[in-house]
């Protein structure tokens, strides 16, 4: 498929969705149902690949682009993921100029605090999946303490956890 057309179809999906997988129905409709350039099985693989790797779940679209037209398709998809993000800049300008108003500030902080509640809620299913024994409990506790009360970079905590998991597996 032509690079530009692929970009337009993908950007249509990213511009009309507001979270990682919300673009899925439109992608499926355009690529699987209407144009037959992707199979349902490939779409599933793309979603899993997006969730296995690091970074945003929305990057599954890169995997979709790759299935449709190889590496150039993946590049078109990355552009489609990035494009809508720049809409935030005029909004930052507008709100930033009005942010000294206590009411606007109250609203922004209200959103932030409810974001903390959402974060806690989002961690629950993850905790249920990941915390399966004494070792994961220890990893949760140690990473919480280290990240809350020291200045250690997050990446070291992630790598240390991976190393511990690997060592535990290899030692049986």
């Amino acid at each position, binding site marked *: 498929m032509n690079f530009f057309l692929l970009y337009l179809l993908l950007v249509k999906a990213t511009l009309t969705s507001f979270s990682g997988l919300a673009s899925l129905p439109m992608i499926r409709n355009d690529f699987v149902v209407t144009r037959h350039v992707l199979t349902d099985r490939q779409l599933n693989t793309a979603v*899993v690949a997006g969730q296995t*790797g690091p970074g945003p779940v929305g990057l599954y679209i890169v995997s979709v682009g790759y299935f449709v037209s190889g590496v150039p398709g993946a590049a078109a998809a990355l552009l489609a993921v990035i494009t809508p993000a720049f809409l935030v800049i005029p909004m930052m300008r507008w709100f930033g100029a009005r942010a000294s108003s206590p009411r606007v500030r109250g*609203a922004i902080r209200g959103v932030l605090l409810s974001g903390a509640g959402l974060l806690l809620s989002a961690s629950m299913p993850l905790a249920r999946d990941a*915390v399966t024994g004494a070792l994961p409990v220890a990893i949760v506790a140690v990473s919480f303490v280290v990240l809350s009360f020291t200045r250690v970079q997050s990446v070291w905590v992630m790598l240390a956890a991976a190393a511990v998991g690997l060592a*535990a597996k290899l030692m049986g």
Partner: protein
Amino acid sequence: MEPSSLRYDGKFMLTRRGQEPSLASLTWLFTRVGNTTFGGGYASIAALQRELVEREGWITHDDFALAFSLGRITPGTNIVAFCAATGWRILGMPGAVGAVLGETLPSAALAVLITQGYESGRSSAVAMAALGATAAAVVGMMWAAVWMLTRPYLGRSAVELRRVVRAMAFAGGAFVAAWKFGVTPVPILAAAAIAGLLWKEPEPKEETET
């Protein structure tokens, strides 16, 4: 002790604070944090909050709050919009481009490799053990972020008590709505914005002059 990021200097979000990083160090921070965090957008935002606000002090707690709020209502992937917003706050348009590419490019390349890996049917139990352990670390990191996000609102004085109640109402309300009643994020955040507009935040005395 109040974190410096909370202090209101009367020039809220109109001037940049602290030292400006170079474009390379900004891009590298987003690359490092964005591509080593598994578990989706919230996990990355939790890690970035810690690095940008608490460790580096490149943006204030309020800048972070604004970028988080606006990132949520920008179409597309919220975390990418969040990176554009914070990168822009720190270094203008080049900062936005650096942050967005740093956040997405390595992960995108990896997504292609993983796709190829799945296609050729390889999956290793050893790799899965390492991934499972990082999932546990992500849980700890998300809880640390909840702690750091709410901590500035947990004061001790009498004026602060009303701030604590207000903060707990927002955070607790959102948690209960999402976890117990399965409400999706956008309506929760919209309700929080409206409630925040109507329910004025009690300001500590030394922060009231503008």
